[in-house]
């Protein structure tokens, strides 16, 4: 059992950190090896965060008077990690618990208007464990149907959903390759359907008045869905297509070219087979590095080298949990670092792997001006690691989101405290 005295010390220490955070407007992380990702690593570097934003990064930067100093000597300092394929906070328990708010019924498997973040619960007990392991931003993506809905990129800060949102929508999500899930008979029909919807969105864009007077032909999607698709056909909002088979990736690329859509490939298991073409078309890919199983006939070429081979060909790659395509994480959003380590083990450079969990997803989702790198003006999303962030032996020693340090106990921590010495205690620990 943790003694009362130790608990008291822990409590006092926690109080000190919070008080210091509240009192000081600035934090200076000094002495660490700093990986800005947007630039070369800096030995013995300093990162200054003021009023929630990074104000200085370098070797000889002035530290504001009264700044809280964090000694990072011998440590690694990186931007907070961005997990870009999660369903964190939109359903804490898979089966048998509260509702999991990740899919919309839509109309004929089209739910473009669905905004998944309306279901985001900032009080989810799974948020804190992710942050504790160095995740400071994440993307929640809808699943199901043909057009699943809109994804959002949020920061792991407490408060309301409004407080958390960095960008919403951050992408429109659709699936091709599984005609059945789209309620259709074959791959070809699925593409026809997508094309019809995009054409209708185009037509709707220029004939809204006629539509409102009921003087248009019937559309394949509802008014709200068509409206939601306007930023996609205007090239403002990326269309993320979950697609694995080489031929499906090719079909997605043809469709994107035809409608001048900003395409993002999710999953992309067989992307390595046409890496040069994906690179030439400047299409980013969200993929994992821990899946090598030909788990279905659409991903027979799945391999752990995929991420590294795509990157080597010049593709913008963001690493996600276990190769995507239906593996959106909730409980283990925190394991992104393991994915990065495995990517390195299977051919990606260490620097590229770090980029693939920080700046790359920020660029793909259009928020690189706010998160993903350590540069003045960016949000104070910073992690101090005890060593190589991808190694299991390394711990997160400090995690800052928008300049505030978080080190609260998670529900899992509380369970461990309770049962660490059996039979355990069933009273509240002393406050």
């Amino acid at each position: 059992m943790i003694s009362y005295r130790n608990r008291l010390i822990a409590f006092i220490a926690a109080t000190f950190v919070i008080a210091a955070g509240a009192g000081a407007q600035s934090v200076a992380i000094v002495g660490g090896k700093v990986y800005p990702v947007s630039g070369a690593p800096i030995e013995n570097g300093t990162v200054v965060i003021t009023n929630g934003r990074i104000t200085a990064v370098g070797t000889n930067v002035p530290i504001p008077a009264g700044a809280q100093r964090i000694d990072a000597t011998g440590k690694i300092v990186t931007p907070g990690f961005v997990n870009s394929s999660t369903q964190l906070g939109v359903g804490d328990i898979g089966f048998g618990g509260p509702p999991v708010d990740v899919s919309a019924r839509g109309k004929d498997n089209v739910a473009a208007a669905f905004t998944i973040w309306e279901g985001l619960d900032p009080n989810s007990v799974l948020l804190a464990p992710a942050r504790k392991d160095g995740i400071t931003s994440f993307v929640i993506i809808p699943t199901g149907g043909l057009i699943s809905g809109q994804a959002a990129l949020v920061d792991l800060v407490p408060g309301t959903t409004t407080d958390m949102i960095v960008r919403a929508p951050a992408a429109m999500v659709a699936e091709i390759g599984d005609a059945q899930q789209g309620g259709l008979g074959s791959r070809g029909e699925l593409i026809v359907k997508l094309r019809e919807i995009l054409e209708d969105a185009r037509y709707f864009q220029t004939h809204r008045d006629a539509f409102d007077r009921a003087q248009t032909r019937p559309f394949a999607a509802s008014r709200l869905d068509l409206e939601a698709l306007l930023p996609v056909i205007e090239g403002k909002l990326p269309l993320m297509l979950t697609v694995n088979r080489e031929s499906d990736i090719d079909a997605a690329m043809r469709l994107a070219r035809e409608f001048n859509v900003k395409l993002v490939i999710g999953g992309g298991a067989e992307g390595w087979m046409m890496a040069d073409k994906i690179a030439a078309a400047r299409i980013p890919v969200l993929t994992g590095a821990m899946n090598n199983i030909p788990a279905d006939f659409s991903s027979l070429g799945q391999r752990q080298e995929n991420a590294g081979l795509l990157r080597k060909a010049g593709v913008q790659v963001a690493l996600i949990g276990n190769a995507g395509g239906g593996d959106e994480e909730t409980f283990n959003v925190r394991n992104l670092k393991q994915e990065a380590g495995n990517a390195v083990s299977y051919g990606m450079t260490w620097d590229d792997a770090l980029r693939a969990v920080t700046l790359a997803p920020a660029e793909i989702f259009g928020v690189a001006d706010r998160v993903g790198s350590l540069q003045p003006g960016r949000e104070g999303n910073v992690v101090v690691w005890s060593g190589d962030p991808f190694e299991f032996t390394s711990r997160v020693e400090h995690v800052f989101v928008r300049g505030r340090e978080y080190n609260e106990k998670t529900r899992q921590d509380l369970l461990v405290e309770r049962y660490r010495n059996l039979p355990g205690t069933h009273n509240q620990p002393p406050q």
Partner: protein
Amino acid sequence: MKALFCLLLAGAVACASASTQPTTSTTPARDSAKSDVGLGATSVPNADPFPSTYVPFPSRTTVIRNVNILTAAGPLIRNGAILMQNGKVAAVGASVNAPADAVVIDGNGKYVTPGIIDDHSHLGVYAAPGGNALSDGNEATSPTTPQVWAEHSVWPQDPQFPRNLAGGVTTLQVLPGSANLIGGRSVVLKVVPARTVQGMKFPGAKYGLKMACGENPKRVYGNRGGPSTRMGNVAGYRAAWIRAVDYRKKWDKWNADHKGDPPSRDLGLETLAEVLRGNMLVHNHCYRADEMAQMIDIAHEFGYKIRSFHHGVEAYKIADLLAKEGIGASIWADWGSFKMEAMDAVKANMALVDHAGARVIVHSDDPSGSQRLNQEAAKAMAAGAEIGLPVSEETAIKWLTINPAWALGLDDKIGSLETGKNADVILWTGDPFSVYSKPEKVWIDGALMYDRTDPTEQWRTDFELGFVPFNRN
């Protein structure tokens, strides 16, 4: 969600393949109650209807020198050596004497460990590339199906097998799924290419019995005649064991006196009677602490032993009980929350259970996780360190090797690098608990079965020919 085979996806209903043909075996009946019947044997009325035909692959006497050895039977041997001869570990230590014709491998500061053993796999019964045609893991037609045997569902050409081998797994237990209260017999396989499942079966391995607690059976049968509650689950186990006790009594009596006609055979009760006789090991899928405690009482009531609780995300809450009862905890490093009964999962589970003196087993229940059980152990080590319960590499290697070997009743043959044991050996590219390390070479019974550096030493299943468009590295 991950492909949790324990969850029984809707429609994943396997077909029964257990033979119901009358047996004409002349194998003499034996009273297994007093003798240790042949391992892997059913005592009555026919001993071993699907015998292993495994023979070790050709091996050469091999010595690995200048290598760090985690033996799972003692402290790390730095810059040591290991000799494999005639399929066995012939010597291991700071240095070994090797015959002149031995293949010599310079370990160059890398690591050697015993082969990894996964005691919770569904390879072959939920084979890739998946789909209904290959969904053979849950005989979800009745909540109690002790009559089915997992081996009758195993497809030896499952492309997941060679991937497991490349991940260092040399032995695995393939279990039926967890839709049922009593799901059927497991089978212990060597991860080797073979045309038949018999060619993969671990000679002499005991069978396991799969049982499952909690949410899965009641979810599957809630609208199909029950059980629909946890109390219904418990009534179901007890009803089955009551029948089994009766059946065993009849057969034991007949085996002893051979008076009159033998009692009629019942495949399911035959399996349960073998558990009661101590010839089979119970592997019980159970998440919650309170349910594990109830399953222990049921085992006491009917006089059988539970060998290991599988999934046990709440094992840390009753680690003292598990230690007292001598029951293993086959658990994940960090899975949780995918259903209500998994919501109290903590990353320190393994460290806490180990600290309380119970046996920790890193298991997978997942074809992907099974390839990286070393990484799972490493995460659990880190979680232990974080709460002030550091776990040494010498301890963690046991979680991956000798402890699961014990769970399968094979700890006298595999699971540690000691003279005379089977030469199931991994040479790692580095420290096995680093995210950057991978098995470089894997031997089973002294035969080199996988070499990352040599594509000609990498097993391809029939399925992979043509379908899988690359040479896996």
